[in-house]
């Protein structure tokens, strides 16, 4: 597996906690952690394998740190990049926009030529709508710290195993 960047906001709680668990699960694999709060196009393009942490804010929005990067992202050529996304979501209190952030960011990255990897089954979750949903799969890993925290470890472990195969 090539050198991989893991980009998330270092100021967050749940997203950062998930990122640390992902880094641990990769074990010896060297992931380069970058802070999404000060991401630039140059930093973003550094490694061709990317793992992005993206929470969903309010009723289905990107967090500021990603939203403010979008105008720059819109001009990047991401052909040859493989991107995996993970994000926290609360399926019980926000069932109408569960992990929308994954879907919003994932779609933008696809438009720029990136290939999204790390799709996961939506089975085992109960929600109404999600922009992250493609068919019966999420465009990444959905982690529900509020309602299914006990499943996070296993979900991360399985996802990391999947990424090892899908990342070149």
């Amino acid at each position, binding site marked *: 597996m090539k050198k991989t960047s893991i980009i998330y906001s270092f100021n967050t709680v749940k997203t950062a906690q998930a990122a640390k668990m992902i880094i641990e699960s990769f074990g010896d694999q060297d992931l380069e952690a970058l802070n999404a709060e000060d991401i630039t196009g140059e930093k973003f393009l550094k490694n061709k394998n990317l793992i992005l942490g993206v929470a969903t804010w309010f*009723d289905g929005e990107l967090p500021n740190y990603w*939203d*403010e990067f979008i*105008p720059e992202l819109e001009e990047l050529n991401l052909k040859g990049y493989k991107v995996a996304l993970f994000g926290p979501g609360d399926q019980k209190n926000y069932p109408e926009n569960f992990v929308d952030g994954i879907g919003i960011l994932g779609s933008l990255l696809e438009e720029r030529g990136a290939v999204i990897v790390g799709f996961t089954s939506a089975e085992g979750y109960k929600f109404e709508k999600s922009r992250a949903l493609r068919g019966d799969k999420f465009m990444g890993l959905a982690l529900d710290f509020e309602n299914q925290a006990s499943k996070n470890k296993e979900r991360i472990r399985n996802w990391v195993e999947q990424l090892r195969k899908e990342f070149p």
Partner: protein
Amino acid sequence: MSQTSKYHIKKTDKETLGKWFRLLTLGRALDDRAPNYLKQAIGWSYHAPYAGHDGIQLAIGQVFEKNKDYLFPYYRDMLTALSAGMSATEIILNGISKATDPTSGGRHMSNHFSKREWNIETFSSCTGSHSLHAVGVARAIKKYKAEGVSICSMGESAVSEGYVYEAINGASRERLPVIFVFQDNGYGISVPKKDQTANRKVADNFSGFKNLKIFHCNGKDVFDSMNVLSEAKEYVKTTGNPAIVQANCVRIHSHSNSDRHELYRDDMERNYVAEYDPLAKFRRMLLRYKRFTSEELEAIENETREIIKEAHRTAMSAPDPDPKTVFDFLVPEAYTAARYPDGTHNHKGEPKKFIEALNETLKAEFRLNPDTFIWGQDIANKEKGGIFNVTKGMQKEFGIERVFNAPIAEDFIVGTANGMSRFSDKIRIVIEGAEFADYFWPAMEQLVNTSHEYWRSNGQFSPNITIRLASGGYIGGGLYHSQTIEGALTTLPGIRVVYPSFADDAAGLLRTSIRSKGTTVFLEPKALYNDPRAATPIPDDFEVPFGKARVRMEGDDLAIITYGNTTIFSLEAAEKLKKEHGVTTRVLDLRSLNPLDEEAIIDTVKRTGKVLVVHEDKVFGGFGGEVVSLINEKAFEYLDAPVKRVGSLFTPVGFNRALERTILPDTEKIYKAAEELLKY
């Protein structure tokens, strides 16, 4: 924001970005400063901070075109008002209630910003009620084929109000150019939106409404708000259909200065919303994408500080409203009935029924004035013209554009009349407020609102409406077809209430009502529509001024002061008194309850010394109590006996005729009461 968006951090010209930053900074500085006025006991006791709504409020003001569009803000819309062109001085003048406050001259509550000369409309504190006004003015925009759209802004919790659904349903059904903007900050004071609506995005509750397009945007983000609102306006202008823009906002502070959000929002939540400070985000974007330097932004920030200092100085030195002016602009100017200054005539001719008088007067006024409109439930369908056929033939003669049905939604009927009035002073609207006066209660919210408009706007806006209501009992109608509601209506300052008993007075008062500015509630004793006792000859041009009672019978021994159905009974009782006792009775028909002819009442007391006040409504709480009080205060020394009252019992009106007879006053009850009074 995407690369194809109209507004984009990389594409929008620097001048526009600078203007936006200046407005955002100025607005926020005012928003933060407003509570200080209360702390220093200067005023501004109500302030609903907008911080967190910055993107959408900037956008509303920017897409609004003065004198072409109509803007209906709500009490959190400070930045909307600034962005639409109001100055910092004007905002502070409203905040601290100065005489030069453009909204109301210090009469209306702070944080209710309007500027009528630009069509930034005056609005009530009654959340969401302006949605009906926005629909009403959009109806006029469409009928008069004018340019422009109506923009109505409100919080997401206002959408819980039933009349907002009536408004959106009406706009959708009539295909009217309205943009409803829902500024969703998640709370109605302390009530979270999960307690307001099943859909978190309340706009989605309207997804089944035909002809209505729903847009969503991030109301915290300047570019998303500008792009979506511009798109929505373009859609409304090109299709003529309404739209909803749901703007997701945050409320960074408490609901208002009387609220403490730390009582129901924890630190985490408050930090979370503060994290998304729209102004801070916009500033970061300007720097990140190198559209402005820090120095340039600081220069703008310094400039706005100076603007506010100057605005503060100017507003503080402005005069306070003069307490002597409290009666100014209470009731708009009435038509002067110059031909019949006391509202009487000597016309001889064939008597006409009450209902004919109404129908013919309406038609005559509609022929005279092309800017007249009438709507109501059941008002126009082929041969039918209202539940009692008062408007028969009107749609045929004047067409569906001027004479049309309304949905079974009384508040909508009144609220859209208020709104349509805003389009032009020339417009005169007649509405059947409800099928029966009994069903008018749902419209009371709009009536109260309408009654305030002229006073509240310091004379800038007069809703020119005649509200016709088929009133009273004696038809075996039971609890909900017998009510006479003048007792409640006359408690409202700012509207006129008239209640004729005879065909000629009905014609004369209706003509005067339609030609006048302001709102007149025109109560029709429906039992008399076809009653030959109420039929009279009527001059074609008859007019009755407001506040002029009419002596229907002269007499010296006793007086009966009355109106509506009971005028007929009182005259019959008077005849019987003459026949049985040889006494003469003066019967004074008030005709107009507000304004009230105090002079005629006092004169009547002076002439007779004994007074019976009679009306159909309940004695307890009825309008007669006001008449008696007036006599006690101003004519007590002329009384030879206590003033007696006759009216209905303090019960609802029963359906069985025996119950109805027991409850309502009639000739015999008046006669007996008069006999007792004569014996005193």
